[in-house]
Protein backbone atom coordinates (compact mmCIF):
# COMPACT_ATOMS: atom_id res chain seq x y z
CA UNK A 1 0.00 0.00 0.00
CA UNK A 2 2.74 2.40 0.92
CA UNK A 3 4.54 1.70 -2.34
CA UNK A 4 1.33 2.26 -4.23
CA UNK A 5 0.74 5.59 -2.54
CA UNK A 6 4.24 6.84 -3.12
CA UNK A 7 4.52 5.63 -6.71
CA UNK A 8 4.29 8.79 -8.76
CA UNK A 9 3.89 9.33 -12.45
CA UNK A 10 7.21 10.50 -13.82
CA UNK A 11 7.23 13.35 -16.30
CA UNK A 12 9.53 15.47 -18.45
CA UNK A 13 10.43 19.14 -18.31
CA UNK A 14 12.97 21.36 -20.01
CA UNK A 15 15.27 23.50 -17.92
CA UNK A 16 16.28 26.74 -19.65
CA UNK A 17 19.25 27.80 -17.57
CA UNK A 18 21.35 30.95 -17.63
CA UNK A 19 24.95 29.91 -18.27
CA UNK A 20 27.70 32.43 -17.76
CA UNK A 21 31.28 31.30 -17.17
CA UNK A 22 32.22 34.41 -15.21
CA UNK A 23 31.43 38.06 -14.58
CA UNK A 24 33.41 39.20 -17.63
CA UNK A 25 31.98 36.61 -20.03
CA UNK A 26 28.73 36.94 -21.92
CA UNK A 27 25.88 34.80 -20.66
CA UNK A 28 23.17 32.92 -22.52
CA UNK A 29 20.35 30.49 -21.93
CA UNK A 30 20.94 26.78 -22.56
CA UNK A 31 18.13 24.22 -22.69
CA UNK A 32 18.51 20.99 -20.72
CA UNK A 33 15.76 18.41 -21.24
CA UNK A 34 15.07 16.42 -18.08
CA UNK A 35 13.14 13.19 -18.57
CA UNK A 36 11.69 10.85 -15.92
CA UNK A 37 11.39 13.58 -13.32
CA UNK A 38 9.88 12.48 -10.03
CA UNK A 39 7.29 15.01 -8.79
CA UNK A 40 8.64 14.54 -5.26
CA UNK A 41 12.11 15.71 -6.23
CA UNK A 42 13.10 19.11 -5.00
CA UNK A 43 14.10 21.66 -7.58
CA UNK A 44 17.72 21.54 -6.41
CA UNK A 45 17.71 17.74 -6.74
CA UNK A 46 16.65 18.21 -10.35
CA UNK A 47 19.64 20.49 -10.86
CA UNK A 48 21.82 17.78 -9.23
CA UNK A 49 20.46 15.17 -11.66
CA UNK A 50 21.00 17.43 -14.66
CA UNK A 51 24.52 18.20 -13.41
CA UNK A 52 25.27 14.46 -13.03
CA UNK A 53 24.35 14.04 -16.68
CA UNK A 54 26.54 16.98 -17.68
CA UNK A 55 29.47 15.62 -15.68
CA UNK A 56 29.15 12.18 -17.32
CA UNK A 57 29.18 13.89 -20.71
CA UNK A 58 32.28 15.85 -19.68
CA UNK A 59 30.50 19.20 -19.72
CA UNK A 60 30.74 21.91 -17.10
CA UNK A 61 27.97 21.44 -14.51
CA UNK A 62 25.57 24.28 -13.73
CA UNK A 63 26.86 26.33 -10.81
CA UNK A 64 24.13 27.10 -8.29
CA UNK A 65 24.23 28.16 -4.65
CA UNK A 66 22.83 25.76 -2.04
CA UNK A 67 23.57 24.62 1.46
CA UNK A 68 21.07 23.47 4.08
CA UNK A 69 18.32 22.47 1.64
CA UNK A 70 15.68 22.93 4.34
CA UNK A 71 14.84 26.58 3.95
CA UNK A 72 16.83 28.03 6.82
CA UNK A 73 20.20 29.09 5.48
CA UNK A 74 19.26 31.48 2.69
CA UNK A 75 21.90 30.22 0.29
CA UNK A 76 19.80 28.97 -2.63
CA UNK A 77 18.93 31.78 -4.91
CA UNK A 78 17.43 31.05 -8.30
CA UNK A 79 14.86 33.15 -10.10
CA UNK A 80 12.50 30.57 -11.58
CA UNK A 81 10.08 31.66 -14.29
CA UNK A 82 10.69 35.27 -13.29
CA UNK A 83 10.00 34.76 -9.58
CA UNK A 84 12.76 34.48 -6.98
CA UNK A 85 12.53 31.02 -5.38
CA UNK A 86 9.99 30.06 -8.03
CA UNK A 87 6.26 29.42 -7.81
CA UNK A 88 5.07 28.91 -4.26
CA UNK A 89 4.47 31.00 -1.21
CA UNK A 90 6.82 31.38 1.72
CA UNK A 91 9.43 28.91 0.50
CA UNK A 92 13.04 28.98 -0.63
CA UNK A 93 14.15 27.31 -3.87
CA UNK A 94 15.22 24.23 -1.93
CA UNK A 95 11.64 23.78 -0.70
CA UNK A 96 10.23 23.89 -4.22
CA UNK A 97 9.18 20.51 -5.54
CA UNK A 98 8.73 19.31 -9.08
CA UNK A 99 5.05 18.68 -8.40
CA UNK A 100 4.68 22.43 -8.87
CA UNK A 101 5.34 21.86 -12.57
CA UNK A 102 3.65 19.89 -15.33
CA UNK A 103 4.67 17.63 -18.16
CA UNK A 104 6.33 19.58 -20.95
CA UNK A 105 6.95 22.76 -18.93
CA UNK A 106 9.88 24.91 -19.94
CA UNK A 107 11.33 26.20 -16.65
CA UNK A 108 13.43 29.33 -17.05
CA UNK A 109 16.12 29.58 -14.39
CA UNK A 110 18.00 32.85 -13.96
CA UNK A 111 20.31 34.20 -11.29
CA UNK A 112 19.13 36.92 -8.88
CA UNK A 113 19.76 40.05 -10.91
CA UNK A 114 20.94 43.25 -9.23
CA UNK A 115 23.93 45.51 -9.60
CA UNK A 116 24.64 45.04 -5.89
CA UNK A 117 24.67 41.24 -6.40
CA UNK A 118 27.38 40.80 -9.06
CA UNK A 119 27.28 37.50 -10.88
CA UNK A 120 29.96 34.98 -10.00
CA UNK A 121 29.05 32.11 -12.31
CA UNK A 122 25.87 30.73 -13.91
CA UNK A 123 23.24 31.00 -11.15
CA UNK A 124 25.60 32.08 -8.38
CA UNK A 125 25.72 35.73 -7.36
CA UNK A 126 27.80 37.48 -4.74
CA UNK A 127 25.51 38.64 -1.94
CA UNK A 128 28.25 39.91 0.33
CA UNK A 129 26.67 43.39 0.14
CA UNK A 130 24.25 42.00 2.73
CA UNK A 131 27.18 41.07 4.97
CA UNK A 132 28.48 44.64 4.75
CA UNK A 133 25.07 45.97 5.76
CA UNK A 134 24.96 43.56 8.69
CA UNK A 135 28.46 44.53 9.79
CA UNK A 136 27.43 48.20 9.75
CA UNK A 137 24.83 47.75 12.47
CA UNK A 138 23.35 44.28 12.78
CA UNK A 139 24.71 43.73 16.27
CA UNK A 140 24.22 44.74 19.88
CA UNK A 141 26.75 45.60 22.57
CA UNK A 142 26.52 43.32 25.60
CA UNK A 143 28.38 43.11 28.85
CA UNK A 144 30.76 40.19 28.73
CA UNK A 145 31.13 38.15 31.88
CA UNK A 146 28.87 35.82 33.75
CA UNK A 147 25.52 34.93 32.28
CA UNK A 148 22.79 37.37 33.37
CA UNK A 149 19.83 36.10 35.35
CA UNK A 150 17.04 34.75 33.20
CA UNK A 151 14.52 37.42 32.23
CA UNK A 152 16.64 40.20 33.73
CA UNK A 153 15.62 42.29 30.73
CA UNK A 154 11.85 41.98 30.47
CA UNK A 155 10.56 41.72 26.89
CA UNK A 156 6.82 42.02 26.27
CA UNK A 157 5.49 38.98 24.43
CA UNK A 158 4.19 41.11 21.58
CA UNK A 159 7.61 42.70 21.03
CA UNK A 160 9.32 39.34 21.23
CA UNK A 161 6.95 37.90 18.60
CA UNK A 162 7.41 40.86 16.30
CA UNK A 163 11.18 40.81 16.71
CA UNK A 164 11.10 37.09 15.95
CA UNK A 165 9.10 37.73 12.77
CA UNK A 166 11.83 40.09 11.63
CA UNK A 167 14.58 37.79 12.85
CA UNK A 168 13.37 34.95 10.62
CA UNK A 169 15.03 36.77 7.70
CA UNK A 170 17.59 34.36 6.27
CA UNK A 171 19.24 37.02 4.11
CA UNK A 172 18.61 35.15 0.87
CA UNK A 173 18.19 38.32 -1.20
CA UNK A 174 14.91 37.33 -2.85
CA UNK A 175 13.48 40.73 -1.87
CA UNK A 176 16.20 42.44 -3.89
CA UNK A 177 15.76 40.02 -6.78
CA UNK A 178 11.99 40.56 -6.93
CA UNK A 179 12.03 44.35 -6.55
CA UNK A 180 12.00 46.13 -9.88
CA UNK A 181 14.40 48.63 -8.31
CA UNK A 182 16.64 45.98 -6.76
CA UNK A 183 15.97 47.60 -3.41
CA UNK A 184 17.17 45.93 -0.23
CA UNK A 185 14.66 47.70 2.00
CA UNK A 186 12.89 44.58 3.22
CA UNK A 187 16.14 42.91 4.25
CA UNK A 188 17.45 46.02 6.00
CA UNK A 189 14.07 46.70 7.59
CA UNK A 190 14.01 43.16 8.98
CA UNK A 191 17.51 43.47 10.41
CA UNK A 192 16.88 46.94 11.82
CA UNK A 193 13.57 45.91 13.40
CA UNK A 194 14.77 42.59 14.76
CA UNK A 195 17.18 44.33 17.13
CA UNK A 196 15.39 47.67 17.39
CA UNK A 197 12.29 46.05 18.87
CA UNK A 198 14.17 44.48 21.77
CA UNK A 199 15.51 46.21 24.90
CA UNK A 200 18.97 44.79 24.20
CA UNK A 201 19.01 46.63 20.88
CA UNK A 202 18.17 50.08 22.22
CA UNK A 203 21.66 51.56 22.84
CA UNK A 204 22.53 51.33 19.14
CA UNK A 205 19.01 51.80 17.83
CA UNK A 206 19.60 55.16 16.14
CA UNK A 207 23.15 54.58 14.96
CA UNK A 208 22.12 51.15 13.66
CA UNK A 209 19.39 52.33 11.34
CA UNK A 210 21.48 55.25 10.07
CA UNK A 211 24.56 53.10 9.43
CA UNK A 212 22.69 50.18 7.85
CA UNK A 213 20.70 52.42 5.50
CA UNK A 214 23.85 54.30 4.52
CA UNK A 215 25.69 51.06 3.78
CA UNK A 216 22.71 49.82 1.80
CA UNK A 217 22.73 52.99 -0.30
CA UNK A 218 26.48 52.76 -0.89
CA UNK A 219 26.19 49.16 -2.05
CA UNK A 220 24.16 50.25 -5.10
CA UNK A 221 20.70 48.95 -4.26
CA UNK A 222 17.74 50.91 -5.60
CA UNK A 223 15.06 52.69 -3.61
CA UNK A 224 11.69 51.37 -2.50
CA UNK A 225 8.60 52.33 -4.49
CA UNK A 226 6.15 50.61 -2.14
CA UNK A 227 5.00 47.89 -4.53
CA UNK A 228 5.62 45.03 -2.09
CA UNK A 229 7.03 42.55 -4.59
CA UNK A 230 9.64 41.85 -1.88
CA UNK A 231 7.27 40.53 0.77
CA UNK A 232 5.38 38.58 -1.91
CA UNK A 233 8.44 36.41 -2.58
CA UNK A 234 10.01 36.39 0.89
CA UNK A 235 10.50 32.74 1.91
CA UNK A 236 9.90 33.80 5.52
CA UNK A 237 6.88 35.99 4.67
CA UNK A 238 8.35 39.04 6.35
CA UNK A 239 5.88 41.90 6.11
CA UNK A 240 6.58 45.15 4.28
CA UNK A 241 5.14 46.78 7.41
CA UNK A 242 8.71 46.52 8.70
CA UNK A 243 9.76 48.91 5.91
CA UNK A 244 7.25 51.47 7.19
CA UNK A 245 8.69 50.94 10.66
CA UNK A 246 12.24 51.44 9.37
CA UNK A 247 11.23 54.63 7.52
CA UNK A 248 9.86 55.95 10.81
CA UNK A 249 12.91 54.82 12.76
CA UNK A 250 15.30 56.33 10.22
CA UNK A 251 13.67 59.75 10.16
CA UNK A 252 13.49 59.84 13.94
CA UNK A 253 17.16 58.86 14.24
CA UNK A 254 18.18 61.36 11.58
CA UNK A 255 16.50 64.31 13.28
CA UNK A 256 17.62 63.19 16.74
CA UNK A 257 21.24 62.85 15.68
CA UNK A 258 21.28 66.28 14.02
CA UNK A 259 19.69 68.11 16.95
CA UNK A 260 21.60 66.45 19.79
CA UNK A 261 22.93 68.95 22.38
CA UNK A 262 26.52 69.94 21.66
CA UNK A 263 28.88 69.65 24.63
CA UNK A 264 30.39 72.92 25.83
CA UNK A 265 32.82 71.17 28.12
CA UNK A 266 34.73 69.10 25.59
CA UNK A 267 32.58 66.04 25.93
CA UNK A 268 31.66 63.74 28.78
CA UNK A 269 31.79 66.58 31.31
CA UNK A 270 35.55 66.08 31.59
CA UNK A 271 36.21 69.74 30.83
Amino acid at each position, binding site marked *: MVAEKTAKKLFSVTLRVWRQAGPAQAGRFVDYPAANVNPDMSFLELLDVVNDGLTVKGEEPIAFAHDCREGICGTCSC*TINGKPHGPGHGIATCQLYLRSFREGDVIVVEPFRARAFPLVKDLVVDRSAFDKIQQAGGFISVRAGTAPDANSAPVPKRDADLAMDAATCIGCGACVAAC*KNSSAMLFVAAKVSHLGLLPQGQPERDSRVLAMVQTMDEAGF*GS*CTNQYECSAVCPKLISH*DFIARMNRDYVKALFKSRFQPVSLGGGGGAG
Partner: protein
Amino acid sequence: MHLLGALFNSSIGKKLLMAVSGLVLFGFVTGHLVGNLQVFLPPDAINLYAHRLESLGIVLWLIRAFLLVCLIVHVWLAIKLTLENRAARPEAYAVQHVNRATLASRVMARTGFVVLAFIVFHLAHYTVRIGHPEWAEHTFRLSDGTMVRDVHTMIVQGFSHLGVSIFYILAVGILAYHLSHGIVSLVQTLGLKNERWTRGLERFAVAYCWLYFLLNASMPLAVLGGFVKQHA
Protein backbone atom coordinates in the same frame (compact mmCIF):
# COMPACT_ATOMS: atom_id res chain seq x y z
CA MET B 1 26.22 64.74 6.69
CA HIS B 2 23.92 67.69 7.08
CA LEU B 3 20.23 67.10 7.55
CA LEU B 4 19.33 68.34 4.06
CA GLY B 5 22.16 66.34 2.55
CA ALA B 6 20.93 63.20 4.28
CA LEU B 7 17.38 63.87 3.12
CA PHE B 8 18.35 64.47 -0.51
CA ASN B 9 20.99 61.75 -0.75
CA SER B 10 19.81 58.79 1.32
CA SER B 11 17.27 56.41 -0.13
CA ILE B 12 14.81 56.87 2.73
CA GLY B 13 15.39 60.64 2.75
CA LYS B 14 14.47 60.85 -0.93
CA LYS B 15 11.40 58.69 -0.32
CA LEU B 16 10.39 61.00 2.51
CA LEU B 17 10.77 64.13 0.37
CA MET B 18 8.73 62.47 -2.39
CA ALA B 19 6.02 61.64 0.14
CA VAL B 20 5.91 65.05 1.81
CA SER B 21 5.98 67.00 -1.48
CA GLY B 22 3.38 64.59 -2.85
CA LEU B 23 1.21 65.16 0.20
CA VAL B 24 1.38 68.94 -0.28
CA LEU B 25 0.50 68.61 -3.97
CA PHE B 26 -2.30 66.17 -3.09
CA GLY B 27 -3.66 68.75 -0.64
CA PHE B 28 -3.40 71.43 -3.30
CA VAL B 29 -5.25 69.51 -6.02
CA THR B 30 -7.99 68.70 -3.51
CA GLY B 31 -8.40 72.34 -2.51
CA HIS B 32 -8.19 73.43 -6.13
CA LEU B 33 -11.01 71.06 -7.06
CA VAL B 34 -13.23 72.24 -4.23
CA GLY B 35 -12.66 75.86 -5.26
CA ASN B 36 -13.37 75.15 -8.91
CA LEU B 37 -16.62 73.35 -8.18
CA GLN B 38 -18.05 76.79 -7.46
CA VAL B 39 -18.44 77.07 -11.24
CA PHE B 40 -21.74 75.24 -10.70
CA LEU B 41 -22.99 78.10 -8.48
CA PRO B 42 -24.09 81.47 -9.84
CA PRO B 43 -21.09 83.31 -11.39
CA ASP B 44 -20.76 85.55 -8.32
CA ALA B 45 -19.38 82.67 -6.26
CA ILE B 46 -16.34 81.66 -8.30
CA ASN B 47 -15.59 85.25 -9.33
CA LEU B 48 -15.59 86.38 -5.71
CA TYR B 49 -13.44 83.35 -4.78
CA ALA B 50 -10.92 84.16 -7.54
CA HIS B 51 -10.94 87.81 -6.55
CA ARG B 52 -10.21 86.94 -2.92
CA LEU B 53 -7.36 84.65 -3.96
CA GLU B 54 -5.83 87.30 -6.19
CA SER B 55 -6.23 89.89 -3.42
CA LEU B 56 -3.92 87.87 -1.20
CA GLY B 57 -1.05 89.56 -3.03
CA ILE B 58 2.31 88.56 -1.60
CA VAL B 59 0.76 85.69 0.34
CA LEU B 60 -0.57 84.23 -2.90
CA TRP B 61 2.90 84.43 -4.42
CA LEU B 62 4.42 82.80 -1.35
CA ILE B 63 1.92 79.95 -1.64
CA ARG B 64 2.64 79.65 -5.35
CA ALA B 65 6.38 79.62 -4.68
CA PHE B 66 5.95 76.93 -2.01
CA LEU B 67 3.87 74.79 -4.37
CA LEU B 68 6.44 75.29 -7.12
CA VAL B 69 9.25 74.19 -4.79
CA CYS B 70 7.24 71.09 -3.86
CA LEU B 71 6.61 70.36 -7.53
CA ILE B 72 10.27 70.80 -8.44
CA VAL B 73 11.41 68.57 -5.55
CA HIS B 74 8.80 65.94 -6.48
CA VAL B 75 9.70 65.91 -10.19
CA TRP B 76 13.43 66.23 -9.69
CA LEU B 77 13.57 63.35 -7.21
CA ALA B 78 11.22 61.28 -9.36
CA ILE B 79 13.64 61.57 -12.29
CA LYS B 80 16.67 60.94 -10.06
CA LEU B 81 15.10 57.93 -8.35
CA THR B 82 13.85 56.45 -11.62
CA LEU B 83 17.33 56.64 -13.14
CA GLU B 84 18.98 55.26 -10.00
CA ASN B 85 16.47 52.44 -9.75
CA ARG B 86 16.98 51.46 -13.37
CA ALA B 87 20.74 51.49 -12.88
CA ALA B 88 20.34 49.16 -9.89
CA ARG B 89 19.38 46.35 -12.30
CA PRO B 90 21.69 46.57 -15.31
CA GLU B 91 20.61 43.21 -16.73
CA ALA B 92 16.87 42.61 -17.03
CA TYR B 93 15.21 39.27 -16.36
CA ALA B 94 14.30 37.25 -19.44
CA VAL B 95 11.01 36.36 -17.81
CA GLN B 96 9.20 39.37 -16.39
CA HIS B 97 6.92 38.36 -13.58
CA VAL B 98 4.75 40.66 -11.48
CA ASN B 99 3.64 39.31 -8.12
CA ARG B 100 1.36 41.98 -6.79
CA ALA B 101 2.59 45.41 -7.87
CA THR B 102 -0.44 47.29 -9.18
CA LEU B 103 -0.43 48.70 -12.69
CA ALA B 104 -0.80 52.21 -11.24
CA SER B 105 2.37 51.70 -9.19
CA ARG B 106 4.32 50.47 -12.21
CA VAL B 107 3.48 53.45 -14.41
CA MET B 108 4.03 56.23 -11.84
CA ALA B 109 6.85 57.84 -13.83
CA ARG B 110 4.81 57.84 -17.04
CA THR B 111 1.60 59.12 -15.47
CA GLY B 112 3.69 61.67 -13.59
CA PHE B 113 5.09 63.07 -16.81
CA VAL B 114 1.63 63.38 -18.33
CA VAL B 115 0.52 65.23 -15.21
CA LEU B 116 3.56 67.54 -15.47
CA ALA B 117 2.73 68.28 -19.13
CA PHE B 118 -0.85 68.93 -18.06
CA ILE B 119 0.26 71.34 -15.33
CA VAL B 120 2.32 73.31 -17.86
CA PHE B 121 -0.61 73.37 -20.30
CA HIS B 122 -3.11 74.27 -17.59
CA LEU B 123 -0.98 77.18 -16.30
CA ALA B 124 -0.45 78.45 -19.85
CA HIS B 125 -4.17 78.07 -20.55
CA TYR B 126 -5.88 79.65 -17.55
CA THR B 127 -3.17 81.38 -15.50
CA VAL B 128 -0.95 82.96 -18.17
CA ARG B 129 -3.84 82.82 -20.69
CA ILE B 130 -1.59 82.29 -23.70
CA GLY B 131 -3.65 82.77 -26.86
CA HIS B 132 -6.54 84.33 -24.95
CA PRO B 133 -5.48 87.82 -23.81
CA GLU B 134 -9.16 88.82 -23.84
CA TRP B 135 -9.78 86.58 -20.78
CA ALA B 136 -7.87 89.07 -18.66
CA GLU B 137 -10.17 91.84 -19.84
CA HIS B 138 -13.55 90.31 -19.04
CA THR B 139 -14.96 91.96 -15.93
CA PHE B 140 -17.83 91.08 -13.66
CA ARG B 141 -19.80 93.21 -11.21
CA LEU B 142 -20.26 91.52 -7.84
CA SER B 143 -23.49 92.13 -5.90
CA ASP B 144 -21.73 94.77 -3.79
CA GLY B 145 -20.74 96.64 -6.92
CA THR B 146 -17.04 95.66 -6.99
CA MET B 147 -15.68 95.05 -10.46
CA VAL B 148 -13.63 91.84 -10.58
CA ARG B 149 -12.11 89.65 -13.27
CA ASP B 150 -14.69 87.33 -14.84
CA VAL B 151 -13.28 83.87 -14.22
CA HIS B 152 -16.62 82.19 -14.86
CA THR B 153 -16.68 83.35 -18.48
CA MET B 154 -13.05 82.32 -18.91
CA ILE B 155 -13.82 78.78 -17.72
CA VAL B 156 -16.90 78.46 -19.91
CA GLN B 157 -15.08 79.74 -22.99
CA GLY B 158 -12.03 77.61 -22.27
CA PHE B 159 -14.01 74.39 -21.92
CA SER B 160 -16.20 75.18 -24.93
CA HIS B 161 -13.31 73.91 -27.03
CA LEU B 162 -13.90 70.17 -27.46
CA GLY B 163 -10.22 69.22 -27.87
CA VAL B 164 -9.19 71.19 -24.78
CA SER B 165 -11.96 69.61 -22.71
CA ILE B 166 -11.05 66.09 -23.80
CA PHE B 167 -7.43 66.75 -22.86
CA TYR B 168 -8.50 68.04 -19.44
CA ILE B 169 -10.66 65.00 -18.80
CA LEU B 170 -7.92 62.58 -19.85
CA ALA B 171 -5.31 64.44 -17.83
CA VAL B 172 -7.33 64.51 -14.60
CA GLY B 173 -8.05 60.81 -15.15
CA ILE B 174 -4.34 60.11 -15.34
CA LEU B 175 -3.72 62.34 -12.33
CA ALA B 176 -6.34 60.40 -10.38
CA TYR B 177 -4.62 57.15 -11.42
CA HIS B 178 -1.28 58.59 -10.28
CA LEU B 179 -2.82 59.51 -6.94
CA SER B 180 -4.34 56.05 -6.48
CA HIS B 181 -0.84 54.70 -5.84
CA GLY B 182 0.56 57.94 -4.46
CA ILE B 183 -1.90 58.29 -1.58
CA VAL B 184 -1.27 54.78 -0.24
CA SER B 185 2.44 54.94 -0.98
CA LEU B 186 3.10 58.19 0.86
CA VAL B 187 1.47 56.86 4.02
CA GLN B 188 3.78 53.82 3.88
CA THR B 189 6.82 56.05 3.33
CA LEU B 190 5.87 58.23 6.28
CA GLY B 191 5.83 55.02 8.31
CA LEU B 192 2.20 55.43 9.30
CA LYS B 193 0.77 52.26 7.82
CA ASN B 194 0.43 48.63 8.72
CA GLU B 195 -1.47 45.61 7.49
CA ARG B 196 -4.36 46.25 9.86
CA TRP B 197 -5.64 49.31 8.06
CA THR B 198 -4.03 48.94 4.64
CA ARG B 199 -7.27 47.66 3.13
CA GLY B 200 -9.20 50.64 4.45
CA LEU B 201 -6.57 53.06 3.17
CA GLU B 202 -6.60 51.43 -0.26
CA ARG B 203 -10.38 51.69 -0.40
CA PHE B 204 -10.21 55.33 0.61
CA ALA B 205 -7.66 55.98 -2.15
CA VAL B 206 -9.81 54.30 -4.80
CA ALA B 207 -12.94 56.15 -3.66
CA TYR B 208 -11.08 59.44 -3.46
CA CYS B 209 -9.56 59.03 -6.93
CA TRP B 210 -12.87 58.16 -8.58
CA LEU B 211 -14.53 61.10 -6.87
CA TYR B 212 -11.64 63.36 -7.81
CA PHE B 213 -11.82 62.27 -11.45
CA LEU B 214 -15.61 62.47 -11.77
CA LEU B 215 -15.89 65.88 -10.11
CA ASN B 216 -13.06 67.29 -12.21
CA ALA B 217 -14.47 65.80 -15.40
CA SER B 218 -17.93 67.15 -14.53
CA MET B 219 -16.80 70.74 -15.17
CA PRO B 220 -15.75 70.50 -18.85
CA LEU B 221 -18.63 68.06 -19.43
CA ALA B 222 -21.12 70.51 -17.92
CA VAL B 223 -19.83 73.28 -20.17
CA LEU B 224 -19.89 71.07 -23.28
CA GLY B 225 -23.35 69.80 -22.36
CA GLY B 226 -24.65 73.32 -21.90
CA PHE B 227 -25.42 72.92 -18.20
CA VAL B 228 -22.98 75.67 -17.26
CA LYS B 229 -23.55 78.57 -19.64
CA GLN B 230 -21.92 81.91 -20.12
CA HIS B 231 -23.84 84.39 -18.00
CA ALA B 232 -25.54 87.36 -19.58
